[in-house]
């Protein structure tokens, strides 16, 4: 049977991808960000996950205003990097795991979470920047990826509670898959940031550090935090943090934190990153 061995959370700031793609990662501004992932790259090279179940949000790339799915699971063979207005990122095509993805969709839908099934989509920085942060710049990504896109573009996104409970259903699905695969669940986005309006640039370090503490040690209570608290305290785009709760719901109640990193700023955003051992 497959096993979820670890959870990873990370911000997915587009400028991080651009810095890497344009060779600016050794500049002091960006070096301070990438430094927080040095441990992670070594760690994951040893862990060698077969599949990463990657929770992210599409930033109006695969989904326009025509269709806005709250939760969409990718069941395709592969996903091309999206052209977000400046050409696609020069990163490898992302290989999917259609059999496991379909198994998860079937299991989770029968557990009352009505996922949208996506058989063709491009993936934007929300998905590819976390891969770059964890794996660097390989010729091919070293694992299969199952994307789960969460709507955080049009209000309301799903509640933190709903996300947390979905994580639990995803765990049940993954752990009932016959093949013996090493699976990691990643929750991406956040931390505090606001990209729009006169309040742009909002960063709340106190909120972020409390969130980092509680997602490890008190996720059940944390999952009850209402949307408005995220938006008020962590900025209009800080709401992305609900996606971390899907990752956390898929892990044991007690986990071991093996890495934690927090840094301000990357462009407009506070960067937060955790690795949680689920063994």
């Amino acid at each position, binding site marked *: 049977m497959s096993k979820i061995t670890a959870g990873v959370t990370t911000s997915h700031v587009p400028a991080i991808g651009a810095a890497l793609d344009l060779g600016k990662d050794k500049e002091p501004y960006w070096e301070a960000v990438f430094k927080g992932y040095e441990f992670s790259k070594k760690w994951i090279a040893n862990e060698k996950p077969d599949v990463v179940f990657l929770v992210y949000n599409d930033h109006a790339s695969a989904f326009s205003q025509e269709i806005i799915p709250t939760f969409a699971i990718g069941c395709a063979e592969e996903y091309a990097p999206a052209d977000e*207005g400046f050409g696609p990122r020069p990163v490898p095509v992302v290989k999917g795991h259609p059999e496991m993805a379909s198994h998860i969709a079937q299991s989770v839908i029968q557990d009352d979470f009505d996922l949208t099934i996506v058989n063709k989509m491009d993936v934007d920085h929300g998905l590819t920047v976390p891969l770059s942060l964890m794996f660097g710049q390989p010729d091919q990504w070293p694992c299969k990826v199952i994307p789960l896109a969460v709507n955080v573009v049009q209000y309301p996104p799903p509640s933190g509670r709903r996300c947390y409970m979905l994580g639990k259903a995803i765990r049940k699905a993954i752990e009932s898959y016959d093949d013996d695969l090493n699976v990691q669940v990643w929750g991406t986005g956040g931390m505090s940031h606001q990209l729009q309006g006169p309040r742009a*640039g909002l960063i709340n370090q106190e909120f972020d550090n409390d969130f980092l503490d509680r997602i490890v040690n008190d996720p059940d209570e944390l999952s009850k935090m209402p949307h408005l608290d995220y938006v008020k*305290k962590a900025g209009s785009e800080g709401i992305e943090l609900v996606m971390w709760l899907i990752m956390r719901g898929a892990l044991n109640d007690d986990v071991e934190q093996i890495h934690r990193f927090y840094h301000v700023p990357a462009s407009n955003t506070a960067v937060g990153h955790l690795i949680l051992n689920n063994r």
Partner: protein
Amino acid sequence: MSLDKPYDNIPGTVIFDADMSRKGFHLNQFCMSLMKADNRARFKADEKAYLNEWKMTDEQKQAVLDRDYNRMMALGGNIYFLAKIFSTDGLSFQYAAATMTGMSQEEYRDMMLAGGRKPDNESTGDQTDE
């Protein structure tokens, strides 16, 4: 009965809800079209002509021509869609965000380097709570 909007009193923040989404539909769909290189080239060659292909209001078109992102958002634009415009211009998210705050690029960059805009009562809207 209309839906609650408990987020209406957050200063300097437009929440992109269903009402804004309806208002901005054509503006946002125009933005999506800029994900294709050919469309970007046509837009750059003649912005007005390209905008006239879309069922946008004159106000929305003017806001695009002015690159007035606060105005575009007030008219239903969503930042992730609008990102296609400044990406087409070769400009960064930080550049666009700075223009929305009324700060210069340098002032905004320095604020971020110093830890960002602080979440005081004024910025979180807590002063207006009961």
